[in-house]
C-alpha cells in the first residue's frame, strides 16, 4: 500500500487545504500525474504523485485543512489487491514517517505536461456562475471528468467564497515565517559584481530581429541561463541545507521570484535550466509567470527549487541583496540594466551594466566559492551566443 501524504510545497508551508481530487478511487495513476489540488497559503497547487499505483481510498475530503505529512489517500501498489491493502492498513500505525523519496522531483518534467490545463466547467455551470457571480475556477467539480456542474456552482453560490484579502494576509504570514527562519538560521554572506552587458544586449537585439514578437527572448531568460551554467563552477550553491549538512541538488531547478499583482511573492521552479535552450527557457518562463499569477502551479515547481534568482531591475534598483529561501543555500539578484561609466583599457566608456549579487549560506559555502561563481557568471554573459 502506498500512502500519499501532503507534501511540503515550500519551507514555509505547514498545512494545506484539499481543493479537489483529480482521480477517483479505482483509477490507475502514473508517476508524475497530478492527483489532487491543494491550497497552500500561496496558491492552489496541482500535487503530483511519484509512484505508479491505483487510487484506493481518499482519506481526506475536499475542503479539509490538514498539516503537511498527513496521509491524503492510500493507493494500491502495482499488483496489490484491495484485500492486502486493507490488511496492511490495520497493521501499520498511521504516523509512520514518510519515505524520503515521496516528494523527490522527477528527473525532468517535460514542458508539455507543465502547461496549464483548462479546468472542465459545464456550459450550464458557466452560465449559472455568471448569474451568481461565482468564480468557477476556484470550485471543486463533481461532474464527469471532475467538471464543475450547476449543482457545484449553486452550492458555492450559497456560501460566499472567502474574500481575496484573506489570501493576501495568508501569503504575508507565510512569507514572514520563511524569511524570519532564513534570517534566524542562515548566516548570509553577500557579494556583488558589476557586469558589462554590451555584448549580451547587442547579441540579443540581433537575435530578436530574427524572431516574431511572441518568440522574442528577454534579458531575464539570458541571465537565468547564465546563472544555471555558472553553477557548474560552484555546485555548493545549488542545493539544500538539511539536517545539519549540505545536500547537492540533482539538477539545476531555478526558483524564479515572481511578484503577485495583489501583493506578495512566489518563487516556483523552472526545471533543468542548464539543459534548456533559450527559446525553451523563454517559453517556460512566460508559462510559469502566467500560471503563478493565475494560481495554478504544480507541486514539483513549488517544492524543489534548488536556488532562487530575483530580478528587481524593472523596479529601478541598482542592486538587490536577497534573503535566501530555506532550505536553499543561495540567491542570485540582478539589478537594473543601465548605461553607466565603465573603465576599460585606460578609457572611460558609457556601457550598459548590470549589478549581479549573490546571497549565500556560509554554512554551505565560503566567499571564495561565491566569488568564483560571480566571476563565471560575468564571463558567461560576455559570450551570449554560447548560452
Amino acid at each position, binding site marked *: 500500500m502506498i500512502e500519499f501524504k501532503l507534501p511540503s510545497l515550500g519551507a514555509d508551508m505547514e498545512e494545506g487545504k484539499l481543493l479537489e481530487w483529480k482521480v477517483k478511487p479505482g483509477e490507475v495513476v502514473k508517476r508524475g500525474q497530478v492527483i489532487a489540488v491543494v491550497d497552500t497559503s500561496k496558491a492552489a497547487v496541482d500535487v503530483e504523485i511519484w509512484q505508479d499505483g491505483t487510487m484506493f481510498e481518499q482519506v481526506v475530503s475536499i475542503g479539509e485543512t490538514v498539516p503537511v505529512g498527513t496521509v491524503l489517500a492510500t493507493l494500491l501498489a502495482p499488483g496489490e489487491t484491495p484485500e492486502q491493502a486493507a490488511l496492511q492498513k490495520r497493521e501499520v500505525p498511521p504516523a509512520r514517517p514518510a519515505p524520503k523519496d515521496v516528494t523527490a522531483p522527477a528527473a525532468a518534467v517535460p514542458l508539455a505536461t507543465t502547461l496549464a490545463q483548462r479546468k472542465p466547467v459545464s456550459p*450550464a455551470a458557466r452560465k449559472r456562475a455568471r448569474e451568481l457571480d461565482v468564480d468557477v475556477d476556484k470550485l471543486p467539480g463533481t461532474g464527469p471528468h471532475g467538471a464543475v456542474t450547476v449543482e457545484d456552482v449553486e452550492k458555492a453560490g450559497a456560501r460566499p467564497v472567502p474574500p481575496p484579502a484573506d489570501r493576501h494576509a495568508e501569503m504575508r504570514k507565510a512569507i514572514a515565517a520563511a524569511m524570519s527562519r532564513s534570517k534566524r538560521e542562515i548566516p548570509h554572506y553577500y557579494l556583488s559584481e558589476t557586469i558589462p552587458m554590451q555584448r549580451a544586449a547587442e547579441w540579443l537585439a540581433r537575435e530578436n530581429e530574427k524572431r516574431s514578437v511572441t518568440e522574442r527572448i528577454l534579458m531575464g531568460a539570458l541571465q537565468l541561463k547564465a546563472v544555471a551554467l555558472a553553477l557548474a563552477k560552484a555546485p555548493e550553491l545549488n542545493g539544500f541545507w538539511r539536517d545539519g549538512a549540505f545536500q547537492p541538488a540533482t539538477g539545476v531547478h531555478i526558483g524564479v521570484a515572481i511578484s503577485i499583482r495583489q501583493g506578495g511573492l512566489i518563487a516556483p521552479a523552472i526545471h533543468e535550466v542548464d539543459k534548456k535552450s533559450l527559446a525553451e527557457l523563454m517559453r517556460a518562463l512566460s508559462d510559469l509567470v502566467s500560471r503563478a499569477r493565475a494560481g495554478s502551479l504544480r507541486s514539483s515547481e513549488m517544492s524543489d527549487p534548488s536556488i532562487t534568482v530575483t530580478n528587481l531591475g524593472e523596479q529601478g534598483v541598482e542592486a538587490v541583496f536577497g534573503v535566501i529561501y530555506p532550505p536553499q543555500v543561495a540567491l542570485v539578484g540582478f539589478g537594473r540594466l543601465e548605461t553607466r561609466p565603465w573603465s576599460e583599457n585606460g578609457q572611460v566608456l558609457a556601457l550598459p551594466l548590470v549589478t549581479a549579487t549573490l546571497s549565500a549560506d556560509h554554512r554551505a559555502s565560503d566567499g571564495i566559492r561565491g566569488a568564483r561563481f560571480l566571476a563565471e557568471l560575468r564571463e558567461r554573459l560576455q559570450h551570449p551566443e554560447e548560452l
Partner: protein
Amino acid sequence: MSRLSYREGMRQALREALAGDPRVFLMGEDVGRYGGTYAVTKGLLEEFGPERVRDTPLSELGFVGAGVGAALGGMRPIVEVMTVNFSLLALDQIVNHAALYHHMSGGQFSVPLVIRMATGAGRQVAAQHSHSFENWYASIPGIKVLAPGTVEDARDMLAPALADPDPVVIFEHVQLYNMEADVPEARNADIRSAAVRREGKMVSLITYGGSLSKTLQAAAELAQEGIDAEVVDLRVLRPLDSASILASVRKCRRAVVVDESWRTGSLAAEIVARIAEEAFYDLDAPPVRVCTEEVPIPYAKHLEEAALPQPAKIVAAVKAALGR
C-alpha cells in the same frame, strides 16, 4: 380499456382501415394466406378477400413500385415489406420516387402510401436479418418516418399515417410484437410529437421503438439508486420533434440517447448534434450515446446481447454523465 398485444393493436388498426375506406388495400410477401411473417395480418384475407389483401412475389422493388403507382392513382395502399433488411432492394422506389414525386411534379401529384416494415435485432436471426436503418429513412425529405414503441401507438399511428397525403414509413421493432398493455379506447391521432414516457429531472433519456422498453427498465433501476431519469419516446423519427427533445434536455441538463443503430451516423448522432447546437449552454455534461457496437450483429446469443444497447449499458452511461 382493453388488453392488447402490439401485434393485435397493429392488426386492429389495419382492420379498421380496410373496413373504413374502400381505397385501402394491403400488399406484401405472405400477408395473405400465411397471415404475415409476424402474424400481424392473420385473418384479414378471410375477412376482406384477395382483392384487398394481396400476396406478392419476392420482389420488393416491384411491389413497392406498384404501391407507389397505386397511390398516385388514387388508392391508399399499405405495403408491408417483411423487414427493413429487404427494403434495401426497394430503396429506389422509396427514395427516388415516393419521396420525390410531390416535388418533381411541382405539387401536382401526391403519394399517399404507407409502408410498414419490421426492424431491429435480438431474435438470433444473424447479421443480414438484424439491421436497424431507421436513420437512413429519417434523413430523407419527402417522407415521414414513424416508430411506434408502445401498444397504443401501434394501434393508433396507422390511421393518421394513411390520412397523410405523403409517403409514411412505419417501423415495427421485431421484439415488440408480443408486448402487451392495457390501452384506452380513445385514439391518439398525433404523428408529430415525441412523448415523455416517464418524468424525471436529473437526466433526459431519449429513445424510440425497440429501445424504449429497455430504457424504461434502466430508468426504473436508476430510480432505486436515487437517480431521477426522464424518458422521452421520439415516436416520430422524421420530422424529429426537436422542441420536445430540447425542452427535456434543458430541464435535466444531461442527455443520454439510446438508439439501436450503429453509432456512426446514427439518429442518436443527429439528436446529439441538435442538442449541442441548440441547448449547449444548458448542458451540465457532454451528451452520451448508447448505440449498437460497430460490428455485424452476431448470431450467438451472448454476443448479440453484448452488441446491442441493454439496460445495464444505459445505467452505466447515465452514471458517467452524472460523474458517478
